[in-house]
């Protein structure tokens, strides 16, 4: 597939990853700070990028930041958190417009990158504290954001299933943290925490666009000269070894029309295992595509659902199945779903299913190289998990997966939690919710 990320370690232990290509009209940058996902700091960490979004000493309001980016031909800036396995990532992102016709494009790109570093290194602060007002406003914004999870029912059910399943593990935490932690956070403590985060966390800069590593390095140099960092501490990987004593059933009632059935499984396959490729194919056969067992059997044959899928959380060793069903069909849907999992485990996999799934996965990976954001996300995921092979080798490994590999990879797969979100029972015969 041609190009690759060129990796260099810059001054102050910042790793730079540059993917050079001429085909985009943008230069995409992601400055990534990695933290362990932990109860004691998850909410503080989540709040940081939201406060950073409010600006730097030279661009002291969100409005000033946005105006500056818009002046760079409609470039875009954002800062937020995400989670990969049991790591929490602060991501400052800029997608800079790189129109081929602009004469001084080098200066524009350097300026755009400067905004990212400026916000990272010199956020609005006085006397060793973030601005009180910004912290107070962002605490409120974060509180509403976390509570707002319930406004998206499908995502809510997914998050709740994982929360219940991983009750005593860091993975239960959502990337944006916990409402209960917010009250005790203040502008001074948060600023001190930020200094610590900045000094000790692994920090990576990902770049995709028409630039050379040497150019990026030259643009970074003056900024890095101002950073003072110790050696980043290593962050331990997640455990995929939780044992399941008995399947847990979690039932939750909300005033909704459609039931959301989610099944959480433990794969017991680490991201670095050679069996991971077989597991990816297994998940694809189960519920990654329209030709997959779940879509075909729950939707097309039984007409029970509009969506029925399975998702592999490779960084944590989970597979989560989701389907939106009429609550009265709970037993039937659960039986069909369980039967599909058993079918794969016992090797009931047709040649077509295996082949189509591999082709579908390969297509997905090949498409990534046409998306700056997709390229960076895939590379971040690999880096975080200590995966050193590139996309090309990953595809080669997928194409070698046999039916035996699939069966071996799912042999340890274990149902852990059944989560069901549904409307008030008993459901009346006419179904309810005919309000349209």
């Amino acid at each position, binding site marked *: 597939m041609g190009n690759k990320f060129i990796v260099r370690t810059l001054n102050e232990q910042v790793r730079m990853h540059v993917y050079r290509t001429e085909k985009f009209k943008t230069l995409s940058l992601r400055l990534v700070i990695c933290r362990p996902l932990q109860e004691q700091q998850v909410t503080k960490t989540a709040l940081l990028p939201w406060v950073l979004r409010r600006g730097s000493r030279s661009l002291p309001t969100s409005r000033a930041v946005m105006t500056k980016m818009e002046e760079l031909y*409609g470039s875009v800036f954002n800062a937020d958190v995400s989670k990969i396995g049991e790591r929490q990532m602060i991501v400052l992102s800029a997608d800079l417009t790189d129109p081929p016709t602009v004469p001084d494009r080098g200066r524009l790109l350097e300026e755009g990158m400067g905004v990212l570093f400026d916000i990272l290194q010199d956020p609005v602060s006085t006397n060793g504290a973030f601005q009180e007002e910004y912290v107070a406003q962002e605490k409120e914004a974060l509180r*509403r954001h976390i509570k707002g999870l319930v406004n998206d029912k499908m995502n809510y059910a997914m998050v709740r299933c994982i929360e219940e399943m991983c009750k005593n593990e860091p993975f239960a935490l959502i990337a944006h943290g916990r409402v209960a932690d917010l009250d005790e956070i203040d502008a001074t403590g948060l600023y001190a925490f930020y200094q610590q985060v900045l000094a000790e966390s692994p920090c990576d800069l990902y770049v995709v666009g028409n630039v050379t590593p040497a150019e990026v390095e030259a643009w970074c140099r003056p900024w890095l000269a101002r950073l003072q960092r110790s050696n980043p501490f290593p962050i331990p990987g997640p455990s995929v070894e939780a044992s399941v004593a008995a399947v847990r059933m979690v039932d939750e009632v909300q005033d909704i029309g459609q039931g959301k059935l989610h099944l959480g499984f433990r794969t017991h396959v680490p991201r670095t295992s050679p069996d991971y490729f077989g597991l990816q194919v297994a998940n694809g056969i189960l519920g990654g595509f329209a030709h997959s067992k779940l879509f075909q059997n729950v939707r097309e044959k039984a007409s029970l659902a509009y969506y029925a899928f399975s998702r592999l959380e490779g960084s944590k060793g989970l597979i989560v199945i989701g389907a939106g069903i009429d609550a009265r069909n709970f037993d039937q849907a659960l039986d069909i779903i369980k039967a599909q999992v058993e079918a794969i485990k016992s090797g009931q996999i047709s040649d077509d299913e295996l*082949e189509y799934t591999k082709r579908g996965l390969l297509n997905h990976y090949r498409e990534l190289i046409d998306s700056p954001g997709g390229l960076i996300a895939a590379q971040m995921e690999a880096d975080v998990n200590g995966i050193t092979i590139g996309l090309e080798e990953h595809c080669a490994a997928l194409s070698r997966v046999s039916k035996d590999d699939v069966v071996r990879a799912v042999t340890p797969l274990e149902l852990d939690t059944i989560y069901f979100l549904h409307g008030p029972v008993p459901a009346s015969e006419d179904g309810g919710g005919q309000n349209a």
Partner: protein
Amino acid sequence: MHKITSQLLGENLYYDVIEPAGLQVWVMPKRGYKKNYATFATKYGSVDREFIVPGTQAPLRVPDGIAHFLEHKLFEEPDGNVFDHFAELGAACNAYTNYEATTYLFSCTENFYPCLETLLDFVQNPFFTPENVAKEKGIIEQELRMYEDSPRWRVSSNLMKAIFHHHPARVDIGGTVASIQEIDAELLQKCYRTFYHPSNMVLFATGDLDPDQVLATVQRDLSPRGYEPQAPIKRLFPSEPGSCYQSRIEEKMVVSQPILKLGFKDGAPGADPTANLRREIVTGILLEMLFGKSSQLYATLYEQGLIDQRFSAHYMNGATFALSVLGGETRDPERLIELVTGGIAAAQTSDGLDIKDFARVRNKTTGELLHLLNRLDEVAYLFNDYHFRGTSLFVYPEVLASVTLKEVHDRLVEHLVPENMAVSIIWPE
């Protein structure tokens, strides 16, 4: 093929018409891309619920949601499921229906031409049986119930009901659980015959492709089918007053805080597509200047905790209806309405629109378009959207460059007025 170049976008479009079927074929090559993407789309959406079937006289009124139902059903073939054909080719296929169009698509990184043939074949081979129509009702019912449970979807759906008296844009694209029960194989066939003639459709392909080869492939597929030219389709729309039907719709759901959508109804688009495009661009700039992330009003609303990052303002421009929509989650919808309408009024009275903001937002709009052109799915979406409204993606930057601040101000005074306004609110239970 004919070639059109946009210097501003740095892209080329190639096109031709296959006669006598009348199918337009368009290709935008994207050098260096591994992915290819093609759509086969018909100008037929949920608002087309009353029309005259070719060869008949009397108008036919069909059940709500039938365009979407038909989209689902086209994936079924006598020899099995279309998804399997694409899966065999290592491609992903999908489709979507909106108010005014239905689009079938695939994306792939190899086997482009076999995929293209499969796309053309399945869309041109309807296979409706009483059994497969009945089966689909269960699936679509769950799809509709999924939307009904979504507060963000419901708030928008209710806004359309408040804005329009009779225009079918007030009805949800998928119809209702009750309306889809009335759909049968015969009705589907009538809709298919009316709206899936190639002259009402467009084929668009993008990726690292040779336009002539795309055209030749489509030609080869179409010629044995023996299409005759079809007269223009007669679509019937009720007359729609300029006012809103209701000023407010409120509902309670399980939400963490209220959700507000505020709409300003616009007059139906006129006969001149370029004038309509101009109105769309001018209104888009206006909304961005007033409510965009770099506006004073956005900063004020954000600092008061009345909006979050997802607050949005955009112009919905169809071929037969148009409105501006803004809003999002808020702790206090009434206060948000007050500040939004106050901000609009302030901009209207003084010289509330700044020339520097105007220049920046206009530049930004060009930049945003360039960002979208990175993505083949966006390229196809935009292409089809403008094509069906009689204009072109390539005309967009030219019109944008010629827009003036005066036009934006005139639009502000004419469009964003209380008489055009309706609100939709979802309250926590």
